[in-house]
């Protein structure tokens, strides 16, 4: 038996052995992610987060910058300034999910789209993932860019489920897939994340590559800070959004 053959057989045996091992529970995988990225204490000492980054659509030659503010328990505001498209703002405040852009104007999100926005706005979504996803199950093992991962299906109380891929070795999230919902329809989204860096004790993936149909988007996080003052009124509903909410409420 040559060395190569022996290695192959050993590899096959190892594979068989590994496959025979029971899969960890999804909650173990998700809790491990919280731990390896900082731990409960590191996450829970913060009540506000500011994130800045850049975004690009390589095929179209478009790029811009992203600013996102989050605050406990579930407030969120994002502004994407995308060159010739202008500013696209979105937010979640007091149960209202909204978006405002130069193209479409102001609108209030409803249904699955609102639910998705609410999940993204949950400040302690890493440690408190159970609030977003009451049901989580490990589906199996799958490779992401050559790295063995656990494949975990997360099901929210309403709306679209999300599949995440966590590295068996590091415990880090490497990929997620879901269905994004908007009035434009439902689009399968695949996001690969990488380049984890530590910001104030918490590991963040600073590079993400998203695919939505034929559209590809790259995002680079350039800065994350915690508990810094945010511009006044950041989380307030814009007047146009408030007018829509009031109109819907019959005010």
């Amino acid at each position, binding site marked *: 038996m040559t060395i190569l053959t022996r290695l192959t057989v050993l590899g096959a045996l190892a594979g068989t052995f590994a496959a025979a091992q029971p899969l960890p529970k999804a909650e173990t995988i998700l809790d491990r992610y919280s731990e390896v990225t900082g731990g409960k204490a590191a996450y829970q000492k913060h009540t506000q987060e500011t994130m800045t980054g850049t975004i690009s*659509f390589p095929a179209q030659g478009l790029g811009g910058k992203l600013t996102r503010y989050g605050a406990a328990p579930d407030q969120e505001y994002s502004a994407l300034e995308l060159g010739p498209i202008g500013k696209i703002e979105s937010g979640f405040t007091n149960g209202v999910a909204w978006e405002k*852009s130069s*193209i*479409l*104007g102001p609108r209030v999100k409803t249904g699955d789209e609102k639910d998705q926005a609410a999940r993204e706005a949950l400040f302690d979504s890493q440690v408190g993932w159970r609030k977003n996803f009451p049901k989580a199950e490990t589906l199996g093992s799958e490779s992401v860019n050559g790295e063995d991962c656990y494949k975990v299906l997360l099901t929210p109380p309403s709306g679209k489920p999300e599949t995440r891929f966590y590295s068996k070795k590091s415990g880090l999230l490497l990929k997620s897939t879901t269905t994004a919902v908007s*009035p*434009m329809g439902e689009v399968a989204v695949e996001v690969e994340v990488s380049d984890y860096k530590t910001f104030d004790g918490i590991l963040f993936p600073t590079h993400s590559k998203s695919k939505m*149909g034929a559209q590809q988007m790259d995002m680079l996080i350039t800065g994350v800070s915690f508990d810094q003052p945010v511009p006044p009124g950041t989380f307030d509903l814009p007047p146009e959004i408030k007018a829509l909410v009031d109109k819907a409420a019959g005010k």
Partner: protein
Amino acid sequence: MRQPTWITCGKSNRYIRIVQPTKSRAGTGFASNHVRAVLALILSASPIVAQLTTDQKQANVASFETVWTTIRDKHWETNPGGLDWQAIHAEYRPRIEAAASSEAARAIMREMIGRLKQTHFAIFPATVYQVLDADGTGEGWPGFETRVLDGRVIVFEVREPQSNIKTGWEIVQANGVNMAPLVAKLQTDPAIHELQLERAVAARLSGQVGAVRPMVFADQNNARVSLDVKLQAPRGEFSGFGNLPPQPVWFESKRLGNTGYIHFNIFLDLVHIMQQFGDAVQQCSHCDGIVIDLRGNPGGIGAMAMGMAGWLVKQPGERLGVMYMRGATLNFFINPRAEAFDGPVAVLVDGSSASTSEIFAGGLKDLGRARIFGTRTAAAALPSVITRLPNGDGFQYAVANYISHGGKALEGNGVVPDVDVKLTREALLAGHDTVVDAALDWIRKQKVSK
């Protein structure tokens, strides 16, 4: 989810006009004498330097692979254009490898994408980018727009009056070229539709800013008038979008009696045009109606059609149509603005109204929200993106099919007006635009019947 934004220009924007092989624009359209001289030098030297270096050959092969793979992976059909795309590769790859020049390689790639028989697939020479990068101000125009009416080039609208040129005059000769035979020749080519024809004619009349074009006109009495027409700086402001080179963009709105009239040349410069469109609609909240003139508008950013429709549709939950891509189906939904106009809307179109113009006009027509006046649109409505190839060329490829709200594909069909109205030279000479007149007449009747 962020709304994807697509370029849906017809093959008619300024950039594509430069590279259209039928335009005979060499030596007239580019920016500076220096650049022109360099280009001439390159062109005249090309037979001598036809031998490609190994790097150039590799870049051409890599470009071919990029084009072929992109279409394989991103065309909305898994068998693009109903073709055996793998067989296409086997057929064209050896030809690219044997191509003796970059021009030959480009021609082979153009032939390959031509097999799709779909609009919005194009290869643009790298030199276009180089020239545009060097000087983007070489888009002089004569200060008036033309239309081809009954085989003759007629002054349609004079924006920057010079030498007493009048609407309705015929341009008999430009730069020593007789226009009617040129038009007749172009019209015999089945591949050249109205959109390309109008652009080819416009290219004959344009060139470097400040240059003088000798032209012979036939005036209102058909008397010959010879004039040296000085080319003006292009109307509007240049605006780009990603890999799409900058285009001049302008917007105008005015009142025709108590009817609003909105006219813009292309769906670009999103932030400003959307703002101006919204302002124009809001300022017209008490108008009898609004006329939106999309004649000659080649399209642009597809999402702008959705946004503009939001100023004209009050009912939530509506859409202009549906875009079908590989792996995704997207509604061109309408987000009604609180201040949306609910009076009569007329949209004016012609054979040079393409892409986003067709999405907008076709969707509003299908929704029963607008009445369409003019002539059938260009039937070129595939959303596309433009990227750069390894050899420096530009590559435009369609990524989706688009079906209007009424269930018809706009590609190949276009938008058929509710009221078919043609421009006539006689009306133009009398100071009338027959299409605008028909729209105003309809709006007046709506008011009376109300």
